[in-house]
């Protein structure tokens, strides 16, 4: 075996042989249980003073190193301070006490950074050891302090108030904001986590990937999760859908009958997943958003659909419009419906009569109910829950 430590990659299969690292004529000693064979290559020495180390021929081991096994330097690259001086600790075996190696300081410490060092005794100057200890404990202390400060900074205000009391919280927050750990920065930082996750979600998305579908017998109860009151039946009769941002430049008005007669009807049994963590399988029917887009093409440059319900109510029953942003890639997914039916009948009020979005590639909160307006836009439109701290993309 040629000794070329500098040219070799770290040996990924290296186990800690239980022998002192730096000695040249080494010999792996205790065969490890486990997969036999190539796991204990001979250690070789990077220093030129030593004659070419031969592959060891240990008395108790089958030749441990197949030729394809790359070699690498064996120095304690990680913690260079401890100078090896040692007696091998292993009791059994006719080990020859290895000669004291010459001073070895590997020139390329990073080459074998990952390598697990053998559990052999090293003799290290006490002062060096103490200095290294100090450094490591200092790092640990810094880590603890950083975690504590970071956690405080990122905790929700209400949680902090409950932990230490509102007054002390405000005082601590004042101190924290002086070193840049302000509320605004907290929101920015946490928002970055959301946008990173949104980017990942968008990268995972494929319009050609169909979502799992179920049998009608798999349908589970779906609760009415309107965040406010459920709109009453009075609006359904006079309902029409406003459509703008079209290539034609005109604003269209479509009735439910037009929606249902003009486009082919599609049915699907898919899972609706809520941001809260629950989910339900339901049987939906309606128009493919893709067909709708083909019939009413958006203006050039449009990348988004702003879907809006002017019928939504808040908890007190007052009108509170609900709006979501949907990227047109999602709108063109074959399982994205402008749904008119549920369980084979027209949509009930609780689930968005007369028309709702049903897209199983987005969280439930994007599946807006009782749509009244669709507008195509070039820039991303506002999104109700995004304004309240949730993700904007919400891809599933």
């Amino acid at each position, binding site marked *: 075996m040629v000794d070329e430590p500098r040219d070799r990659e770290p040996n*990924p299969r*290296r186990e800690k042989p239980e022998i002192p690292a730096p000695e040249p004529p080494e010999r792996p000693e205790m065969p*490890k249980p486990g997969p036999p064979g190539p796991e204990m290559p001979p250690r070789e020495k990077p220093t030129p003073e030593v004659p070419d180390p031969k592959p060891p021929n240990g008395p108790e081991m089958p030749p441990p190193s197949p030729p394809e096994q790359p070699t690498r330097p064996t120095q304690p690259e990680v913690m260079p301070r401890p*100078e090896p001086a040692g007696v091998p600790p292993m009791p059994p075996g006719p080990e020859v006490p290895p000669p004291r190696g010459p001073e070895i300081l590997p020139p390329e410490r990073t080459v074998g950074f990952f390598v697990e060092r053998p559990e*052999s005794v090293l003799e290290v100057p006490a002062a060096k050891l103490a200095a290294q200890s100090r450094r490591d404990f200092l790092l640990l202390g810094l880590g603890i302090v950083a975690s504590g400060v*970071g956690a405080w900074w990122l*905790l929700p205000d209400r949680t902090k108030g409950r932990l230490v009391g509102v007054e002390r919280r405000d005082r601590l927050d004042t101190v924290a904001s002086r070193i840049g750990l302000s509320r605004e920065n907290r929101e920015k930082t946490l928002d970055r986590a959301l946008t990173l996750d949104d980017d990942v979600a968008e990268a995972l998305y494929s319009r050609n990937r169909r979502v799992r579908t179920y049998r009608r017998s798999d349908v589970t109860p779906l609760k009415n999760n309107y965040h406010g009151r459920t709109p009453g039946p009075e609006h359904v009769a006079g309902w029409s859908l406003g459509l703008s941002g079209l290539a034609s430049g005109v604003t269209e008005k479509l009735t439910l009958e037009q929606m249902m007669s003009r486009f082919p009807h599609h049915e699907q049994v898919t899972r609706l997943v809520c941001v809260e963590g629950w*989910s339900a399988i339901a049987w939906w029917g309606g128009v493919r958003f893709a067909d709708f887009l083909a019939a009413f093409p958006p203006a050039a440059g449009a990348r988004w659909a702003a879907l809006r319900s002017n019928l939504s109510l808040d908890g007190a029953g007052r009108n509170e419009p609900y709006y979501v942003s949907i990227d047109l890639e999602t709108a063109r997914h074959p399982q994205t419906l402008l749904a008119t039916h549920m369980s084979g009948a027209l949509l009930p009020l609780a689930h968005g009569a007369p028309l709702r979005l049903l897209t199983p590639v987005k969280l439930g909160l994007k599946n807006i109910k009782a749509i009244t307006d669709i507008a195509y836009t070039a820039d991303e439109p506002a999104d109700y829950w995004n304004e309240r701290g*949730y993700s904007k993309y919400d891809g599933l």
Partner: protein
Amino acid sequence: MPSSGARSTRIVPKHHPLVRLTHWVNVPLLFGLIASGLAIYWAAPVFFHAYDPVLRTRDYFVSLGAGIAHLLGDRSDPRLWFYNHLSLGPQQLAVSLRWHWALAYLFMLNGALYFVGLALGGGWRALLPRRSDFAEALGMMRYYGGVIPMAILRRPWPHPDIRSKYNALQRSAYFSMSLFGALVVLSGWAMHKPSQLGWLERLFVSYDGARVVHFVCMIMLGGFVIPHVILAITDGWDTVRSMVVGWSTRVKESSHGG
């Protein structure tokens, strides 16, 4: 040796810097992941008991928290005790999700660093269960079971002679924690992206299957900490320190630890 005249100490290298780094980084990450994860769980529990009309809940955690509050004589709302004390809090879904994603990405990064280090450095072999582990694990359990009685009886109770870096119990514990760590990430993705990663969701049978696995993994990872810390501390300062500095001064019996 440069310092031939100076005092020197005999040590045994123990933990690779990457192992130490990722080990300690896991502590705040898991803490934050559990705190935010339970706050997310608050929004839609998956484990239900029969409806309790007094507490107006079916959530086991609400009931558990109410029980603890009662034991502690805590006068605050018993229905909120659990989520107030063991999570970021009730009604904190949006912020908890953001916490959870931020920490989850860091946890994956940390785990990747750990696994890559183990794979490249060969450290994984010390964690791989071996054929002899069953017998050795029984011996270790016998040893641990006898530590306190033998101390009371003042009888010698030597530690089993372990020649490898970890004993069989440690190996199985550390190995399974790696598995649970990987599983918690996989089940997390399965419920986070069940549409794009439908194959992963199917791996856990269903959406709620992934939720249950995710939850069980949390229990295992969190529950592991208790015996882990107790054993490390009882084993001695040298063992605790070795996870900070990377070496042990237990030269003769350098083979066991927490």
